[in-house]
């Protein structure tokens, strides 16, 4: 059976070159970068090189890159670390209602600590409105954290404009760029952000590693305590195999970015257009153009997302859904709900996220199989009426 992986938003396979390098750093170059001896020094070189590679991808200085265990930790650090460092200046934070849980739940934790958080609404396309940001800012605001590209619906947020507002008021600006880095050009100076989150496993690097970009001079407290690694900011023996893998993955994706961005945009649009043509009662979620090149998100009415995923999986197609049943919670995607999509339609959402290995033929295959699957599930659905 044909296998079509369309869940690159969840995670990506590690490139062979990267996996080979990771292997080498597990076996031959296995040293601890803090060690004085040759094993340690070899490791340290790898660490330094990876830091340069990641810095290059986002236009940062190597010494502004701090490796973490992934995107979640980096988001937590950016938000909690800033709050703790600046709590004497104010206790107000602005975020959006469509952030990843790594950001949202960090904000909720801070509310328990006595911080006030404004969760901005989004419009029907999933975009944060600049006006809303402007109105939310008070003289107590210490941090704005808005994601660059939403992981579910792919909308690209106006970070540059928001960061400009933040800068004017001396507010720290963080963006979660987990879903934008490697997909669209990301440059910390163009964006004007102080903090930016990257995760390795979304860019064909290993899992369990990511980084927080911290602009020189930005006030931030540690959230982990211990050794002197990462210039005293993030303790723990460095995940060196992961880090060198992340570094190489960053370099390689940077090289391909432009070409891949164009290629995926075409595939994405072919997929969207093809589905809309073939299946009725379908709604495209997210902004039609201000959208990451790899993201397709639709709601297919009268059927439920998990059943859809299982059916697609049996045909070799791997996708994801904002269905409540896939998250273990009772509510479907908070992102779709925030966009004003009713529960019953949100339950039937389907996210397909494209990547390096996907071809035109993959898209053709999906366009052939998806309508059959939808037809079958709708036939079982008490909500569906053929004559509708």
């Amino acid at each position, binding site marked *: 059976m044909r296998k079509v992986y369309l869940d690159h938003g969840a995670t990506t396979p590690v490139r062979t070159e990267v996996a080979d390098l990771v292997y080498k750093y597990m076996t031959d170059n296995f040293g601890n970068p803090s060690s004085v001896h040759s094993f340690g020094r070899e490791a340290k070189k790898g660490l330094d090189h990876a830091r340069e590679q990641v810095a290059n991808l986002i236009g940062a200085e190597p010494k502004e890159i701090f490796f973490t265990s992934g995107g979640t930790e980096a988001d937590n650090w950016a938000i909690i670390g800033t709050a703790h460092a600046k709590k004497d200046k104010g206790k107000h934070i602005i975020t959006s209602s469509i952030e990843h849980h790594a950001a949202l739940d960090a904000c909720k934790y801070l509310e328990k600590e006595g911080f006030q958080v404004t969760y901005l609404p989004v419009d029907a396309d999933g975009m944060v409105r600049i006006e809303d940001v402007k109105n939310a800012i008070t003289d107590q605001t210490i941090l704005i954290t808005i994601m660059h590209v939403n992981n579910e619906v792919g909308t690209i947020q106006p970070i540059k404009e928001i960061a400009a507002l933040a800068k004017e008021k001396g507010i720290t600006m963080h963006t979660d760029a987990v879903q934008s880095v490697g997909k669209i050009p990301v440059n910390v100076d163009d964006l004007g952000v102080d903090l930016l989150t990257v995760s390795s496993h979304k860019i064909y690097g290993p899992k369990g590693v990511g980084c927080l970009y911290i602009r020189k001079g930005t006030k931030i407290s540690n959230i982990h305590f211990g050794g002197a690694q990462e210039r005293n900011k993030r303790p723990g023996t460095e995940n060196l195999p992961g880090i060198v893998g992340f570094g190489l993955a960053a370099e390689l994706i940077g090289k391909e970015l432009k070409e891949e961005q164009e290629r995926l945009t075409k595939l994405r649009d072919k997929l969207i257009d093809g589905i809309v043509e073939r299946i009725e009662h379908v709604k495209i979620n997210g902004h039609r153009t201000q959208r990451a090149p790899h993201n397709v998100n639709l709601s297919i009415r009268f059927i*439920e997302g998990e059943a859809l995923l*299982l059916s697609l999986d049996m045909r070799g197609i791997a996708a994801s859904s904002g269905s*409540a049943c896939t998250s273990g919670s*009772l509510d479907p995607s908070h992102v779709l709900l925030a966009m004003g999509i009713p529960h019953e339609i949100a*339950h039937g959402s389907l996210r397909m996220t494209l990547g390096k290995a996907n071809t035109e033929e993959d898209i053709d295959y999906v366009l052939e199989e998806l309508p059959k699957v939808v037809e079958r599930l709708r036939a079982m659905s*008490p909500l569906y009426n053929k004559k509708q």
Partner: protein
Amino acid sequence: MYTDKVMEYFTNPVNVGEIEDADGVGQVGNPVCGDIMKMYIKVKDGKIADIKFKTFGCGAAIATSSMATELVKGKTLEEAKKLDNKQVAEALGGLPGQKMHCSNLAADALKKAIEDYESKQKEVK
């Protein structure tokens, strides 16, 4: 996540469909929570002569619906009323914890269908 049995009943569910002239119809759940089950029964000599379902819901919801219909087809109404959601889950070799509540309502839908049948009988009398 799911047992093979669940996947089997999800993939090839038995008794899917509607019964146009059903003697009883029962529906539970609502679209907001993501699961709706609708059961249609045909009753003959106090037994469930035919039963069909339609389900909007996840894999577990579809599998439990199908399994429930299979378990009661041919049974007396009294027997069928005793079916509970736990038995359905067991017949499928178990369900993941978070699915036990929201997606395992088939027995409830069946009960409603039987109640519907019985209340209609009363009206007829």
